[in-house]
């Protein structure tokens, strides 16, 4: 029987404009539930969720931040400890997409240099109100070399997948950092990790 509930602890952060659905994304991921009433997050909340990736139990501690403009200075002080950051915009809100650049700058200034980033275009269930095309999301992500996904907390699209992919990216780095006898071995390990990728999603994302 396992002696530990988890093998690794990853700290993730959700940022983005107010109202893009950060809290809903977290709520969907942690409680598999959705509520459409908007309650602005006035502070920093966190939830725990343990996932299994490549046979490792990974405990994700996910911090949900207040998106309101006036809190930006304060919320940036929470970036430092994060190993992964989800940058969320709302596909029905042009401004929230434009601000992605600003948020990215914020990350550059305040987060760890090697933080894993991912851009999420949320509310993709509301296609009739869509203003930001998927292409634009993809291209800004490509431009900055960041992962991208369109999600819907309401329709439960890509939520689990997004977190698992981000966690996996961090796992890649973490295992790369493990002491190895020689560089060849590291290279081999990483190749191995890549091959495993497809199968392990199933592992984590099947509920």
């Amino acid at each position: 029987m396992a002696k530990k509930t988890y093998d690794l602890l990853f700290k993730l952060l959700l940022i983005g404009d107010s109202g893009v659905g950060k809290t809903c994304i977290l709520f969907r991921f942690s409680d598999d539930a959705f509520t459409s009433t908007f309650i602005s997050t006035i502070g920093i909340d966190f939830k725990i969720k343990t996932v299994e990736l490549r046979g490792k139990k990974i405990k994700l501690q996910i911090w949900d931040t207040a998106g309101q403009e006036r809190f930006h200075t304060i919320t940036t002080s929470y970036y430092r400890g994060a190993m992964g950051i989800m940058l969320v915009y709302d596909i029905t809100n042009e401004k929230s997409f434009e601000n992605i650049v600003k948020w990215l700058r914020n990350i550059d200034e305040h987060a760890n240099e090697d933080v894993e980033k991912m851009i999420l275009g949320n509310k993709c269930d509301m296609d009739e109100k869509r203003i930001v095309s998927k292409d634009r999301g993809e291209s800004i992500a490509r431009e900055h070399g960041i992962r991208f996904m369109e999600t819907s907390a309401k329709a439960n699209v890509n939520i689990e997948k997004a977190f698992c992919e981000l966690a996996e990216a961090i796992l890649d780095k973490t295992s790369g950092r493990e002491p190895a006898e020689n560089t060849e071995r590291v290279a081999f390990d990483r190749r191995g990790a890549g091959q495993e990728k497809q199968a392990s999603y199933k592992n984590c994302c099947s509920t």
Partner: protein
Amino acid sequence: MDPSIENDHLEKIRRRLRLRNEQILSIFESYQKTSNENPNRLLVLVESNGTFAVFSLALLQLPPHYESDISIDAIYCVNSFFSINAEVKNSMTFEIVTLSDSPTFHYYPIPSIFKTDFDSFHRQVISAQEAFKSRQELDAASNSFSWLNEYKVDKDFIAIDVKAANGTRPLSKGVSKFQEELKKREQEYITYSDYTFYCGTWNVNGKGCTEHSLRSWLAKTTSPPDFYAIALQEVDLSAKAIAMNDSKIDQTWIRKFLDGLHSEAAYEELVSVRLVGMMLSIFVKQDIRQHVTRYTVSSAATGVFNVMGNKGGVAVSLTLNMTDICFVCSHLAAHMDQIERRNLDYAEIMKRCTFDEVFRKRTIKDHDQIFWLGDLNYRINEIPGQIVDRRDIAGLLKNDQLLQEMRKRNVFNDFEEGPITFNPTYKYDPGTDQYDSSEKMRAPAWCDRILRKGDRIQLILYDNVMEIRQSDHKPVYAVFSVGIKTKDDKKYKRVHEDVLKTVDKYENDNQPQISVEKTEIDFNEIRFNERLTRDFTIANSHHLSANFSFKEKEEQQICKKWFKVEPTTGTLLTGDSLIIRITFKGLDSRNIGEFLKIVKGGGSVPLDILVLHVQDGRDIFITINGEYIPSCFGFDMDLLCRTDRPIAEYSLEQLDELEKSSAKCDFKVTMPREIFFLIDYLSASVESMKDVFFLDRKHSKHHSLNLVRDWLDSWSRQDFPSNKQVAAEALLMLLESPNQPLLHPFEELFLSTESFEVISSYVLKLSPPKRNVFLHLCMFLKEIESKGNNINELAMIFGNVIVKGRRQVPGYRDGRCQLFMLRFLLNKDVASFAVENVQMEC
């Protein structure tokens, strides 16, 4: 109550109860009496598709400000068992009964913010029940309270650890919680499969095996057993073996065993253990060998001095699938009268046989199932005068020492033995089935026994083997069908995943939580030199106690320097609330400049944001707002000269605009009116100018300073509202409070130059308002000097204020500012220089 406010409360309740199609029919306010408090309860009658329920809501505050102030205390289905007893109303209480055998809930009505009185609430509940009943008669199936299931989440489903909540034990976290949950749900992934265990024991009387085959003892079952546990005693009785506590396995016996096992299956020896005469061997069917995941051996000697191995026990501990099993072979003390010694030997073996594991020592009792085999040496008590028929087994068993001791619970507690249907196994003349015919004429006894302890063990056979005759004991054997716990991997994986979720949920639900009355604190209007306080309540309505603290932000401060927060840390037990006080300490001439930099431009920039941190929980941001009402204090002389109306009539935005449009010619006056008013007032009483300016600035906290402030800010035509000491202090504050000192940007130069000419030339380079103020001041100071004031003291007071300003820059020593002032004031040409260069008109 204002209907809109009532609607607002209703809306909060609707949201909290997540009502969609359900209707709130009535709300009634009451309270309950509990052991040490009288909590408020809102009773809410809700209808959903023809079924009704009364919600008893607990409130953090009344009226509720936030949804989170409301929690569900209880839900009563208005079914036919429900009754609301109005008779007791007169004694100011009413009862709610939900089922005839369930407790009665007492509520006490209180005057309500909601308009309902008890009678109308009561009427509505009764008519709801009538409606329910008549509907039920029509169609019983349609009356479903299933809509209430959703609320179970609120009460039952939250993984509340009651003991942690009431403080009787710490919250279990992480690993232990995980194990706890996994164990709790064991039944879901455990299946039991039956294994056949053969246990045999034989005291061989110190002789090697002379039997042709042991098959007549070992191969007793039709189908081959899965496990063999074979125990021998007196394998070697030599003094040498005893002295050496010999533990070498006698392989001839092992070969003999293997040869005698059931022939229809392939067995392998799992492990054997020996201590002098006692030997225990475990054989396992080859095809189930892999299910044994662990085995260890142990032994305990209880012979002479409790160290010699002529008596004692050997044991094997093993795990088969998920069941921990222990086999013990023991040889206890001999002789008819040694009952207690035998009991003690048992206790010693139980205590001293331990199996080393990574984190702990496992003892015999730490197993799911225990099989105890051996020559236990208990005899049959002989009752004097009673002639015993040796064939009367039932009669003999009545006097069996072991059964008697077990009944008295002196030994083998909770062990069981199968019914004995065979003859006593001791003592025979070797080679025969005859009881001892030697001189000793030992009485026959069931020395050799097989006991077991544990669940799911079924005895199939228990017998001795008469035809094996080489020893003075007959071998005994027992066959059991044993239910072994097996993990269903698929089910286990699912439960495991589920448990992870449960533990995550448990952890999420058990975050300490604090609710905050409001997250925006508004000081409304903030003025120079005024102190204000604001209070707000934080409360813990969660089931765990919560430690909180206001987090330090940049510069290790929890708030800006003009605020104070009290208390900054604390603990809130469940149900506690606490008032947090935020004090605006007031702005003075030393901090107003810095403050203005923050509020500049007005707008909706918060004055500060506090971070209320709940230990192991979330952070709550508390925004402090307030509107600064501008005053002349803190503004630069240049700006004050650009105003064309009293500063009180400007907004911060307008002043900001004024400052930015710094074209040179737009000064409306040569020197700020505020300065002029003060100097003018002071000059009027110049005859008595002694004791007006003080080095210690003792009037800086004077109560009438704010009157002077308002007088200046409104360009008042009223008489000066205070005395000249306060006017003098106001003048100093006015000069001191801007971000830059009056003599900026030449302050450094003035301090290091002795030449009056050079200084004068730079004075002329000051901005006109600054230059005019400076020269006016010089003239004023010369004037009051002539009335007997000490010029040294004046130079020190003003030097600090106009050269250094409010800055505490190291290296600006007081003396140097004073020296500069003196140098300038005492120069013979200063009066004419001032008169010549002061600008009288704009």
